[in-house]
């Protein structure tokens, strides 16, 4: 039973990271019908920004939790700026172009960002400090759930709650839903579509950066290439849950995390990817638009 719990927590942690990244994919898809392949790189840039910010902040002698918080905010802000820049440079000029053009542009943006970090930083793995302090009352359970995992789960839950409130309750959130449902109609009703799309990229990028900082602090190392596999997995999670659906992305992330964790724990980690994609194929055969996805309605 302990073993099951350990795997469950491991899957939940991994799923949280997938979910945080998947939200960016699904929000952009919901609004633009575009798969933002550069999103995994934004996650990676978030992790690097978090590392740089944390290193600078740790010299000020602030408590670790404050360093974590400020580093996460810095990473989210900087990644949001990158998300906006990518949208402005790589996607907006192609908004009226055939669907393939922005797809190629997205892949180009991904390669560009990855190589930018490779040149500007390093090709080596770099050590990421453990920003989450040991929580004393968790110590007896460290084998099952570490304090870093608790923080990942708490931050993810908060971020999702915040996102839901944002999309449901604010003017900008309402505008997002309107643009997702019918961009032309929203434009005619006076919604500033460009601003809404920009905001979507910024929010998605900030969430991915949060994921990057959390996982960096949890596993203790990052490099310029971590965005690729994480991006693919998060994209899978988004498709699994129904791309375009926010709760779908979260559900997809957790299902993927658990599948991998249990497959690795009870079968073999050599096949964890195989199980993840078998699950994806099986679900898409039964529900072609994902678990919570609908072909038109329910986006964003």
């Amino acid at each position, binding site marked *: 039973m302990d073993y099951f719990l350990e*795997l469950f*927590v*491991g899957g939940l942690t*991994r799923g949280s990271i997938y979910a945080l990244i998947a939200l960016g994919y699904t929000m952009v898809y919901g609004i633009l019908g575009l798969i933002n392949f550069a999103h995994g790189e934004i996650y990676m840039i978030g992790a690097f920004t978090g590392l740089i910010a944390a290193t600078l902040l740790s010299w000020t002698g602030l408590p670790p939790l404050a360093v974590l918080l400020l580093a996460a905010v810095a990473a989210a802000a900087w990644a949001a700026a990158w998300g906006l820049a990518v949208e402005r440079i790589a996607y907006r000029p192609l908004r009226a172009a055939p669907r393939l053009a922005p797809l190629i542009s997205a892949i180009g943006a991904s390669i560009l960002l990855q190589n930018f970090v490779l040149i500007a930083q390093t090709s080596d*793995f770099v050590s990421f400090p453990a920003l989450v302090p040991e929580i004393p009352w968790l110590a007896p359970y460290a*084998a099952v759930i*570490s304090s870093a995992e608790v923080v990942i789960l708490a931050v993810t839950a908060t971020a999702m709650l915040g996102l839901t409130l944002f999309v449901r309750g604010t003017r900008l959130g309402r505008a997002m839903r309107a643009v997702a449902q019918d961009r032309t109609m929203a434009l005619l009703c006076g919604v500033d579509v460009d601003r809404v799309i920009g905001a979507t990229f910024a929010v998605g990028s900030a969430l991915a950066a949060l994921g990057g900082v959390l996982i960096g602090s949890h596993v*203790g190392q990052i490099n310029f290439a971590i965005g690729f596999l994480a991006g693919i997995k998060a994209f899978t999670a988004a498709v699994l849950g129904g791309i375009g659906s926010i709760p779908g992305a979260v559900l997809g992330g957790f299902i993927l995390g658990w599948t*991998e964790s249990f497959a*690795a724990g009870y079968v073999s980690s050599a096949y964890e990817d195989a199980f993840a994609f078998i699950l994806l194929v099986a679900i898409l055969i039964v529900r072609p638009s994902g678990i919570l996805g609908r072909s038109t309605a329910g986006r964003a």
Partner: protein
Amino acid sequence: MSTPVSAVLAALAVVALTAGASVASAGEPIRLGVAGPQSGDLASYGIPSSRAAELVVREVNAKGGVLGRQVKLLVEDDVCKPEIAANTAGKLVSDKAHAVLGHICSGAAKAALGIYRDAGIIAISPSATNPELTQSGQYPNFYRTIAPDDAQARIEVAFALDTLKVKKIAVLHDKQDYGRGLAEFAKKFVESSGGRGAVVMFEGITPGAVDYSAVIQKIRQSGAEAVIYGGYHPEASKLVAGMRKKKIDVPFISDDGVKDETFIKVAGAFAEGVYASGPRDTSTNPLAVKAVAAHRAAYGGDPGAFYLNAWAATLALLNAIEKAGSTDSAAIAKALHTEFVETPLGRIRFDARGDAEGVGFAMYQVHKGVYVAVK
């Protein structure tokens, strides 16, 4: 195909040397075959070895040769191809080589060794690492001055079972050629240890995965007392850090891919106490320094692959002939097994299978942020 200039020069040099010295020497020369790629894609693996042989022989001949006879090199090109290596071997046999330095590539060596065996000729390779060549028992005439491919796994398993005295071992790898091959050998050695150890977990992990928490829990679940990991440092540092964070404090034993500064830099405090096998450092050996200097003087620039191994092999062979007192292969073989010889790789002799004792890998442990050799 044109004959490479260096081979021609080497041959000329040998002719000149033997012609100049033959006046003083008694009896016919000792013919040492040198077989390896002298041309083609892999020539860079063969030429350093023939240069090493030539430089050693030049030195030995200047001092009066072996058994009072001059040593003559017969350099043959096998292009590292098995089908050509068989011809090369046939040529060396008909030229009455007394012993052979070569072949360089494992495939070529395999094709040639049967021919030498049937002709009663000893072959010593500076570079053929295929484990079967010595372990199959098919080629008692074969020796080598390089560690076989499974040497790292062998030393890691021996270290775990004999030094750390653990029984239950988890063997992990990164599913790639190097790591997986090593892990499979480690598994084989543990299982054939006569019940002294057992593999409680054998598993591949995905390089670049977000985290390894499931695998780490599985290590705990398996009850492993030590982990042997085949692969490179990025995954190793993630695994070690994850294990230590989850309070799994069993020894972590890995390979040359982990015996790297970056591993310590990235894993930080978690690297402390990690074991890794790595090549023995011979660069400060005075004979190695001398051998490299000889190459610089003769050719300019640093020697290439397997140069020191070839230097050691040539020395070992000539020493064995000297000690044996004849070119009879049974006597040479006995001397190779029993007589130590000082070489650039250290003081060596050959074990019963034909692998050089003391050549190859040693265990290291991270101690205060640096790898130090385990005594």
